[in-house]
């Protein structure tokens, strides 16, 4: 049963990736004027335009162009940057570790805040902590997520002068202290935001579990409240929480553009933004395809894990 679900889900994934690839590819034709004009600039001569057309293969029929592009994508060739001439895969290869490190830091911060706060708020819904968690979530989500970054830069970078105001990517393996110093502020920005999104889900998932009869049974057997919360309520509530964390994680791939810009952090979002500003279409297309692919795969993985782990979910 789980296998047939997996197969159907893979079919859906293939369809999403196909439509996504067409949409990403066709983008270049939606540019006002023609793509070669956008790339070569308004002052380009007829010869220059023809050269661009030939270089990009724009003189071939549309389906042939699409097939050659998508063929490249399938074999790991995303084309090369118009600005630097480097392979898009190479540019991506430089940014993926930076984004990955930022995401790991952010998710850890988000969970460290949201898990205890959410569990406690579910356990004691009328407590001060529960109210504070509710206020935190509502207030934080009313501000632009990158705004927090500006405030953090002022506080830790300019006022206390303990952390750099601009964040470079320092690999954690090479220099843990440097990595920590450089990644902390952008990660805190994203982590505090993530905690605000997450705390509500943790709270509702755990309080749903706490209301179930098995919790009363465990309590009647004399289990400690900590044991009940962690081993019985939180563990059973883990699946929906994992789902949300998975989706958040997917959104962080390329979705933290403004935050990355505030800190000048060399992540994937920043790569797309700079490529967009310089009309570097192969980079935009290649990275978007990567983002669509990673998000769709994470999404599917979350669904399949969910179905595999929880026999109560009817996969049909």
């Amino acid at each position, binding site marked *: 049963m789980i296998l047939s679900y997996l197969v159907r889900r893979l079919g*859906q994934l293939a*369809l*999403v990736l196909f*439509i*996504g690839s067409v*949409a990403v590819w066709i*983008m270049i034709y*939606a*540019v*006002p004027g023609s793509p070669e004009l956008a790339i070569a600039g308004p002052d380009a001569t007829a010869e220059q335009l023809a050269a661009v057309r030939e270089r990009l293969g724009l003189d071939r029929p549309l389906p042939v162009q699409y097939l050659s592009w998508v063929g490249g994508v399938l074999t790991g060739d995303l084309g090369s940057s118009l600005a630097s001439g480097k392979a898009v895969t190479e540019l991506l290869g430089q940014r993926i570790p930076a984004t990955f490190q930022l995401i790991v830091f952010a998710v850890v911060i988000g969970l460290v805040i949201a898990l205890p706060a959410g569990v406690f708020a579910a356990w004691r819904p009328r407590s001060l902590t529960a109210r504070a968690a509710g206020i935190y979530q*509502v*207030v934080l*989500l*009313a*501000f*632009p*997520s*990158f*705004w927090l970054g*500006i*405030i953090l*830069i*002022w506080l830790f970078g*300019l*006022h206390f002068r303990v952390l750099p105001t601009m964040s470079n990517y320092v690999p954690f393996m090479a220099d843990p202290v440097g990595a920590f110093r450089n990644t902390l502020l952008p990660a805190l920005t*994203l982590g505090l*935001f*993530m905690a*605000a*999104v997450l705390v*509500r889900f943790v709270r509702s998932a755990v309080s749903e579990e706490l209301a179930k009869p098995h919790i009363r049974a465990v309590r009647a057997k004399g289990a400690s409240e900590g044991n009940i919360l962690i081993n019985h309520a939180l563990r059973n509530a883990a699946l929906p929480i994992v789902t949300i964390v998975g*989706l*958040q994680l*997917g*959104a*962080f*791939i*390329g*979705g*933290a*553009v*403004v*935050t990355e*810009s*505030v800190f000048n952090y060399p992540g994937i*979002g920043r790569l*797309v*933004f700079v490529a*967009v*500003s310089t*009309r570097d279409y192969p980079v*935009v297309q290649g990275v*978007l395809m990567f*983002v*669509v692919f990673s*998000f*769709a795969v994470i*999404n599917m993985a979350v669904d399949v894990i969910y179905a595999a782990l929880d026999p109560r979910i009817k996969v049909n």
Partner: protein
Amino acid sequence: MTAEAHAAPPELAPSKRRGAWRRLAETPIGLAGAIALLGLALMALLAPWIAPYDPLAQTSLSFEPISAKHILGSDELGRDIFSRILFGLRLSLLTAVSTSLLAAIAGIAIGLVAGYFGGWLDGLAMRLMDVILSVPAILLAIVLVAIMGGGLVPLIIAIAIVAVPTFARLTRASVLTIKEREFVAAQRAAGASMPDIVLRTILPNSLGPAVVQLVITASTAVLTESGLNFLGLGVAPPNASLGSMLAAGNENLFVSPIYPVIVGFAIAILVAAFDAFGVGLQRAYGTTVSRGGVLA
């Protein structure tokens, strides 16, 4: 991350809908949101008359502190921050209202067609929505604005496109349950034409969740718009937008840390007003659509 919507099966008979506004007035938070929104809308509409200064005029030295002359201080070019916030508010409200209406119209149409006809049309439409949702909203909006050449209209269209899938999914879910209901079958049996059934019976009964989503979309649109304007993709300078004011504040953080704080609060007040109004509407309609965060 865009609004995460969880479609609740709509149970809205037309008679119940009429009471929704009255019930909204009975929820204090919804009422507070409505009043705040009304006030903000008035401030935005009357901006040219109530702003103490021309938002583009250099009226004093740069970064003058808060004083009777400039109640929120002056910016990097010596322009009055309060006047610029009023005009920025105007832009944000315009964006919020037009994007949510555009997204609602497109999304409801797609959801209606997909839900009513089903089959391959439904599959294709929903996978297309999946594709839109599989790119982070802000990233997709950036690319779309850039493709369209930048400026206010592309900005509005881009944010609207990003918001379409939620409306389409919600409407589709409503249509799927409503088209099986007895009163639709009765209409069909009475010989009503297909467009009549879709537009006069199914559509009005599927709108409940979409109305709530309209307000949620407005609040996410304000946040997305501020991100795009922060990156310089929206209205061109010297025109005021809350996002570009945040960018200026960020660049001059060392000189005037209070500037981005003030602008941030202006955005948050507008967003919170939409959110409160949305919560009130949810209670009034008995739906459970909630806003996720807007990652930017």
